[in-house]
């Protein structure tokens, strides 16, 4: 099944059709997708900037991670669920331009990077989190996260301009 066939099947499903045709639910889902960025994207950027050494330098990394994590993850749950719902309501036009596939690829990359950070640095963060100079790998993970999530948001905003389905 090709990507556009899959999107057509999603669109034709009861969920996709009712969402696309709903007067209030669709705008609300789109609104939540956008505004939940304040939690998901905004707080991950803050965490990345801490790893890079731009903000909150006097606060140990593990404290920033630990105190922001529930809000950040909650935000990502909201952003992802509403994003999946929007994909159901989008139809095959979504993949006519490569913007959306590129966005998905970057989300995958950002996810891998987060996983790598957790495995490599997550357990030992209490030991290095308060150091004046953070491990180079942690800093690189911060940069990769910052760049990839920023591109995800930018590409997302470009979808209505460059994909023909909208």
């Amino acid at each position, binding site marked *: 099944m090709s990507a556009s066939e899959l999107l057509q099947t999603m669109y034709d499903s009861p969920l996709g059709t009712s969402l696309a045709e709903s007067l209030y639910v669709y705008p609300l889902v789109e609104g939540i997708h956008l505004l939940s960025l*304040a939690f998901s994207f*905004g707080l991950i*950027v803050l965490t990345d900037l801490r790893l890079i050494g731009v903000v909150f330098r006097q606060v140990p990394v593990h*404290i920033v991670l630990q105190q922001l994590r529930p809000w950040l993850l909650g935000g990502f749950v909201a952003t992802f669920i509403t994003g999946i719902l929007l994909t159901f309501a989008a139809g095959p036009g979504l993949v006519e331009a490569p913007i959306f596939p590129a966005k998905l690829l970057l989300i995958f990359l950002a996810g891998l990077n987060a996983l790598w950070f957790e495995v490599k640095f997550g357990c030992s963060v209490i030991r290095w989190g308060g150091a004046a100079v953070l491990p180079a790998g942690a800093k690189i993970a911060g940069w990769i996260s910052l760049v990839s999530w920023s591109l995800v948001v930018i590409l997302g905003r470009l979808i209505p*301009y460059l994909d023909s389905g909208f």
Partner: protein
Amino acid sequence: MNSQELFQTIQNSDIAVALGQAHVFFGILAQLFHISGLVLLLTSILLVNLRLLGVGLTHFSAPQLAKYTKPFVFTGLGFLIISGIFMLAPSAALYEPNPAFWLKLKLLAVALVIQFTLYRAVTATETPNRFVAIVTAIISLLLWFSVGLAGRAIGFVAA
């Protein structure tokens, strides 16, 4: 002059016409500045308000966070207002009859008033009354997120 005439005058102004004729690239750029401004503003306000509720980045006090995020709030507001005018001016007369647009402006006005009165006063106090802090946080969060939702609604209400 009523508001429809005013908005028509804005749309017919040289600057608005020039903005309208600009390449679509600038339109996209304005959208990207609008979304960056939104994240800068909302995430900053979110951090401070979570702290007023007693959660989030509790390593700091609310006044510390408010002071720390102040430049981000103003940068965000600057991005939002300038890019917003850029998007509005070339088709101002189309926005004027849109109820979501006016709702957004009214909510924005109230949010700004609260921001520079109640919110400023509460976040300047090292140990504010717990009840006042919670009420302020809820009002501030509801207002700013409503401004965003009303903004999203503009495109769906448009005739």
